[in-house]
């Protein structure tokens, strides 16, 4: 077992330091790159906080959908393959809901400020029958 502080805490401390103390004194292209770098640290923080739960839920949905067990990557490969072959599509019970949930979980880490994500978060709720 590793000691504290946790990676989450360390990364957040670094990101906060760069944001509050360093960024105001940097200009030009480096300011842009610094902003991107801080965004990257924030993304890592969100991933460290959220990934374990969302991965576990994704594995369990995938196992149910595909009727097999496996690692998250193996299950995703199997799902991609079966969609490509047309064995699963939007008419398959649970597929649209699964893709929506998985995508929402990705956006929560990658870009929680993305307008489409915020819209779906507000108007979300259980997936209804797909249109096509």
């Amino acid at each position, binding site marked *: 077992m590793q000691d504290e502080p946790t990676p989450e805490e360390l990364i957040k401390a670094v990101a906060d330091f760069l944001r509050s103390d360093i960024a105001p004194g940097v200009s030009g292209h480096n300011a842009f790159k610094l902003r991107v770098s801080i965004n990257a640290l924030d993304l890592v923080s969100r991933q460290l906080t959220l990934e374990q739960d969302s991965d576990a839920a994704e594995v369990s949905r995938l196992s149910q959908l595909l009727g097999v067990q496996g690692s998250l990557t193996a299950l995703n490969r199997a799902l991609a*393959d079966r969609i490509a072959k047309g064995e699963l599509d939007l008419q398959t019970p649970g597929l649209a809901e699964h893709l929506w949930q998985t995508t929402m979980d990705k956006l929560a880490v*990658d870009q929680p400020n993305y307008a489409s994500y915020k819209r779906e978060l507000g108007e979300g709720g259980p997936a209804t029958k797909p249109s096509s």
Partner: protein
Amino acid sequence: MIEEQLGRGVASWCPGATGVAGAVRLSGGASQETWSFDIVHPDGNIGAILRRAPPGYGASPTRAAGLDAEATLMQLAHDAGLPSPRVMHVLTPKDELGTGFIMQRVDGETIARKILRDQQFAKARPILARQLGKVAAGIHGLPASKLPKLRQMTTTKEIADLEREYRSFDWPRPVFELALRWLRQRDPGPSDQMTLVHGDFRHGNLIIGPDGVRAVLDWELAHIGDPMEDLGWICVNSWRFGEIDKPVGGFGSREELFAGYESTGRRVDPERVTFWEVMGTLRWGVMCCGMMQRFRSGPEHSIERAMIGRRSSETEIDLLRLLAPRRA
């Protein structure tokens, strides 16, 4: 150094010019550069732009039209009265500047967030979609006999290209699979009209002033194909910059875009436009994945590219909103 090189030959293509000044590099990677500079002229300085592949970087990627073709297209557009800078000079070996061309500099803004939010563009925003519809129709109407040699694209070829590129990443993306399947099943086949297609008709490649669109830039992806591609691409959500209820670049409606387009006598096929919007959304997603590959394999180790890789999920939510909307 580039000022000196430009200055040496400037009088040969701009009569009366005595030199160049104020050269600054604007953007671009190693293989393609854009420079802004002023031509010093007794009648008053002239703002100019150099777009070039430096010596030794002649080969262009397979999708690129090539700088000579770009110059021809810009000049054709200019001559047809479309918003396009005048091409002043196409580089020759004598210039020792590589391949490329020099065009007139057009003042205005290309940054989407400014165009969508700054007060100075408040009067332009409501008219842009209609204007751009008209401009797109003008591009599609350029005479085929005068066009340079360009690659020909069809929906079927584009789907195959996207699929090949996506598969090369060897990373499972069920939403992309769904989109590829959707595209293949609804592939409308070759368009009954094959025209010049700009290929990258969106924010970043449009110079906007307070009075509206002033120039269409960057013809690198120009090709012959289905003209509806340009109308679909400009509606891709990634170019709305948060203004998601205004499908055309975050400033206008499809109806306005189509009305401007049809005011020229050309026809819009809305179903094909939607098809290309889905294709374009997937294409941007695949391009984001490509950025991540380049981050990993390239020598620059660019954090920007790495973070663009993490934007492919944005196109996944947009694809789901298009293909499997949660509300009726």
